[in-house]
C-alpha cells in the first residue's frame, strides 16, 4: 500500500490494548449463552403420557424408551443428540420443552446425562 494509515492503526491498537480479552476462561467463568440457543431438552414427567412419538421421530435415534418405576419414559442420550429439537416440536403434550442449557454442556450436561444413564436409574 502506498500510504500507511498511522492514525487509524494507532486507534485500533490503543483501543484493543484496553479492551477485555475476547476469549473467556471457560471452565472457570460462566459462558454467555444467547437466549434462543438450542440447549438440552427439559422433560416434564407430569405431562408425559407415553405416546412414544419422540423415539420414532428423532432423526438421530437418540431417544430410547426405558422403564422407570413401571412406566415407559424417554431417555435422551445427549451424546447422540444433534439438538435439532424435532422431539420438542412434535411432542403433542409439550412434555419436552426447550432450554438454553447448552454452554454448560461440559459440566452440567455431564451430570444430567449421568443421572439418565440406564445403569444408574
Amino acid at each position: 500500500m502506498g500510504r500507511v494509515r498511522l492514525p487509524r492503526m494507532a486507534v485500533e491498537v490503543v483501543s484493543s490494548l484496553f479492551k477485555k480479552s475476547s476469549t473467556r476462561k471457560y471452565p472457570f467463568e460462566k459462558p454467555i449463552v444467547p437466549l434462543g440457543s438450542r440447549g438440552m431438552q427439559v422433560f416434564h414427567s407430569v405431562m408425559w403420557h407415553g405416546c412414544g412419538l419422540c423415539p420414532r421421530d428423532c432423526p438421530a435415534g437418540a431417544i430410547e424408551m426405558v422403564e422407570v418405576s413401571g412406566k415407559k419414559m424417554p431417555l435422551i442420550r445427549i451424546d447422540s443428540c444433534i439438538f435439532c429439537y424435532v422431539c420438542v416440536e412434535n411432542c403433542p403434550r409439550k412434555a419436552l420443552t426447550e432450554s438454553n442449557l447448552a454452554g454448560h454442556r461440559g459440566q452440567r450436561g455431564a451430570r444430567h446425562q449421568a443421572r439418565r444413564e440406564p445403569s444408574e436409574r
Partner: protein
Amino acid sequence: MSAEEEAMEAISKRLGERAQECRIAAPRRICVLVRCGSHRDAISALLERFEFTTISTITGVDLGEDIELNYHLWCGRTEVTVKTRLPKIRPDVETVTDILPGAALYEREAFELLGVRFLGHPGLKRLVLPDSWPEGQYPLRRDWKPEIAGLEFPQEADSVAIGAEGENRGSTVNVVFGPQHPALHEPERFLFKLDGEIVVDVEPRLGYAHRGIEKGAEKLMFFQATHLIERICGICNVAHATCFCQAVESLGGIEVPPRASYLRTIVHELNRLHSHLLLLGVAGMEIGFETLFQYSWRDREMVLDLTEKATGNRIMAEYNAIGGVRRDLDPIVGEEMKKVLSGIKRRAAFYKKLLGEDPTFGLRTRGIGVLKAAEALRLSVVGPVARGSGIKMDVRRHDPYAAYGEIPFEEVAYGEGDSWARFMVRLDEIAQSVDIVNYAIEKLPSGPYRARVPRRVPEGEALGRVEAPRGELVHYVKSDGTAYPQRVKVRSPTLANIMSFREMIRGCYVADIPAVLASLDPCFSCTDRMAFLDVKSGMKWFWSLEEIKRRRLGKP
C-alpha cells in the same frame, strides 16, 4: 413464446416421434422423456438453441426393471430434465462428454453407484468408492444391502503416478499430496505431476469423507431427512436445507408463507456472508497474509453470533423446515443485525481497497489460475468461479426462489477469470448480501412463518435449485407417495467446479497451488467425490517446459 415452450419446441422439432412425453412440471422446469438412445440428440438440440446451456447433474434412479437417467440441464432461463430409461440387465448408454464435457464426473458417479456403462466415456473410473470396492456392487440400486458388500475387501493404496510408466521420463516427478496433510483442511488427495517448479498435471481423488448421505436419506422420513441433509456441509448447511425443503414443497404443492420466504432469505444470506468471510481468511493464510486471516475471521465471528441469535445455533442453523421456517425473527435481533452488518459492509469495502492495491496480493493472484469464459461454460462451472470468468450466472436472479424475486440486486461478475477476480466477486457479494439482508428486514411481511404440512408427500419428482455460497446447488427428490423419499440426489457446487482446477493450475508454480485452490473455495465434505480426466479428445497429456512457459505468458 415463454422460455419453457421455446425449450420444448427445440427438443420436439429435433426428435419428433422420439420425444415420448413433454411437459412443464413447474415454472421454469421442463421434463422430457425421450426414447432410449435419443438423449444425445435432445441435448445437442438444446446446446444449439441456447448459448448458455450447462449441465447441472445426472441423476440415476432405479425403477426396478429399468434404470432411469435424468440429465438436468440449465438453459439460461429454464431447467430441462431429459429422461431416458435403460433396461437394468444391460444398462449401456452413449456418453455425452464429447458434446458436454462438464458431464464427465456425473457420468462416473452414475457408473459406480448404479452400474450404468457410458459407452465412449474417456475414463470411466471410480469416483467416490474406494478403488478396491468389489466389482458389480452398486450401492444405489434398490436391491443392494450393505451386507452384500461385506466389510472385508482389500484396501489398496491409490496409484502414485499419472499416466503410463513410459511417460514419466526426463525431469518430471510425481508428488502425492494428502490425504492427510497439514496444509489441507479436509481429507483429499492430490497427485501432482511436476516439471521442476511447474505443475504439468494434477489428479485429485476424493471420497475419503464419503458418508453415503443420499442412501441414508432414503431411510428417513422427509422431515427427518432435512436434518440429515443439513449436515452434508458445515459451512453451507442453510443452502442445503433450503434446497431440500424447496424441492419437497414443490413436490407436495405446499405454499410457503411470505414471511417465511423472507426469513429464509435473511438466514441464507447470513450463511453466505460467513462462508465468504471464511474463504477470505483462508485465502489470506494460503498466500501468507495472516493478518487478513485474523481480521476476516473476527468479522465472521460476528456473523456467526447473529446466526445463533436468529436461529439457535452458530453453525447448524436448522432453521428451515418443510413448509416454512422454525422460528420467528425477534425485531430486536433484526435491529442488531442491521447495525452489525453495516460495520461488516464498511470492512468489506476496506478489504476490497486493500486487496486491490496491495502489490503482494496482486502478484500472487493476478493472472494466475486463469479460466477463460468459453472454458468455464464448457466445463459447466457454477457460482463465483463462473462469475469470476465473466459468466453472469446466479440462481438467485435467474431462477428466483424464497424472496429473491422481490429483492432488487445485480449479479456480480468480473471478466478476468483469474484468482484475483474470483476473490473480488466474493468481496462484492459480501456487500451485496448485507444490502439484501437489510432490504429483507425492512420489508419483512407479517403473518405466519410456518405452514403445517402432512408427513406423506404425493408421488412425483422435483428439482430444487439454490445459489449456495459456492454456486448452484441442486437437489433432486423423488417420492413414491409415502413419508419416505424414494431417491434424493445432491449435486454440490464443488463437484461442478473441481473439473476446472486442472485447467487453472496447469502451468502455474507449485507455490501457487494453495492460492488457486483456495480461490475455487472447494468444500470437499460437500463433494466427497471427485477425480480428473481428460475429456477433450486430442488434448496433449504431456507438455514441454517451453510450451508451458508460453502458455503462462498468455501466448498461444
